[in-house]
């Protein structure tokens, strides 16, 4: 079991989360060329080692997170909300 320290809920089992995928993919503009879209949709870095990836805390706060995780050892180096400014916005609201 991987334990993911959710910035909102604390450390939880990975089975509470849903795996998104490579967080470094940047989708091109809607009118970008087919080649750009092809690369974004189909091509993958498939890193063996540390990579940034998205997870959603589905059975928790339901927030999307960007997790820096080693794809060989499964060690987690960092976790942050996927939407920048989200943590601050939530704090400001309260």
């Amino acid at each position, binding site marked *: *079991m*991987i334990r993911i320290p959710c910035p909102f809920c604390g450390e939880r*089992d*990975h*089975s509470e989360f*849903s*795996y998104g*995928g*490579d967080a470094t993919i940047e989708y091109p503009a809607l009118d970008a060329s*087919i*080649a750009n879209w*092809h*690369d974004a*949709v*189909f*091509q*993958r*870095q*498939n890193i*063996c080692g540390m*990579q940034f*990836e998205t*997870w959603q805390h589905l059975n928790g706060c339901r927030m999307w997170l960007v997790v820096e995780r080693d*794809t*060989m*050892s*499964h060690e987690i180096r960092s976790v942050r909300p996927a939407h920048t400014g989200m943590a601050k916005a939530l704090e400001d609201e309260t």
Partner: protein
Amino acid sequence: MTRFSGWNVFWNGLTGQTGWQRQWRDPEPKPHYDILIVGAGLHGLATAYYLAKNHGLKNIAVLEKGWLGGGNAGRNTTIVRSNYMMPGNREFYEHSLKLWENLSHDLNYNVMFSQRAHVSLLHSPAARDAAARRYNTMRLTGSDGELWNLETLKANVPLLNYSPDARFPITGAAVQRRAGTARHDAVAWGYARAADQLGVDIIQNCEVIGVTRKNGQIENLETSRGSIGAKKIGFAVAGNSSRLWDMAGLGTLPIESHKLQAFVSEPLKPLLDQVVVFGVGGAHFYISQSNKGGMVFGGDLDWYKSYAQRGNLPIVQDVAECAMSILPCLGRVRLLRHWSGVMDMSMDGSPFICKTPLDNLYLNAGWNYGGFKASPASGWYFADLIANDRPHQFIVNHDLKRFERGYNIDERGAGPDPKLHG
């Protein structure tokens, strides 16, 4: 090399088993080969064998970073079937099944191929309609397929949970009788022995650590046992294709590496005479009984990308729950081992056997869940591609450019998300 035969077994039984020789040589790598295959798994070994046998080529070597058959060849559930429907896949997997049917004789090695039938359980009218379409397609293209109603299924597979109160009551099954299982190690050893007899050098403990390119070609592979050159090079390293591709300076592939677990129980008396598949709702489960009596079964991927050859516990629980829901009699059976293999999960769930941007490099990758059953045809068509420098008509769309053409070979219709092509 002593041929295996009833007579030889009898003779060696009388003479103290002294007449057997080692099964394949352990040669030192030469500085240059005509053809180098990277990866001595089932696909790499089969490729080398068919290059030598079908195309009469010599001076071939297979490089393996560990020991042969130590990767996914030993990390699967040994199921062989051809119930694929999409053009290309249909012909390819059917040819593979035909090769399996004669493989023991061809290799002079008993791969213990057992055509015990592959039984996919059905739970709804929609599932039956979809199965009818798929299995009719198979029948129309020279294969076999049947739909069983509940009575036939009960008569053939009596121990399933047929309770009408089950969460997903069983209503019938789609069956391929020619499908079955084989002994995974024997396939690796059989191909290795047969390839070695035809002069192929199998070089173990030889990891590729670098690729030297010159003029749009690969000149040398730098390995842990020195630099080795070749006229033509084939990569057959599913699980680690992206790493070797990157090492060759070729960028990215439409592949993610995911891991798939499988399990074997303690040996039991004969209990299940078919391969049974249970897939409905969130469940995904397949089970058969090995010749030693162990129940061999597996389920879904671990859902997150990984290169680690070890599985996670939530999937163990999922698979155990599936087992209990269709075979409640397994409730007190103890697990003997479980293991995990790293799969090349491709963007449409179908493989790649194709030429590459480099003139003398050929790629065999992206086998998803289907690597074991595919290995004879994979070797057959990969050898054909390397020998003739053009794809056979069956694999003409199994190339890296198909997504650019808008051509997906997506059996499940799951879309471009590798983890969904289970």
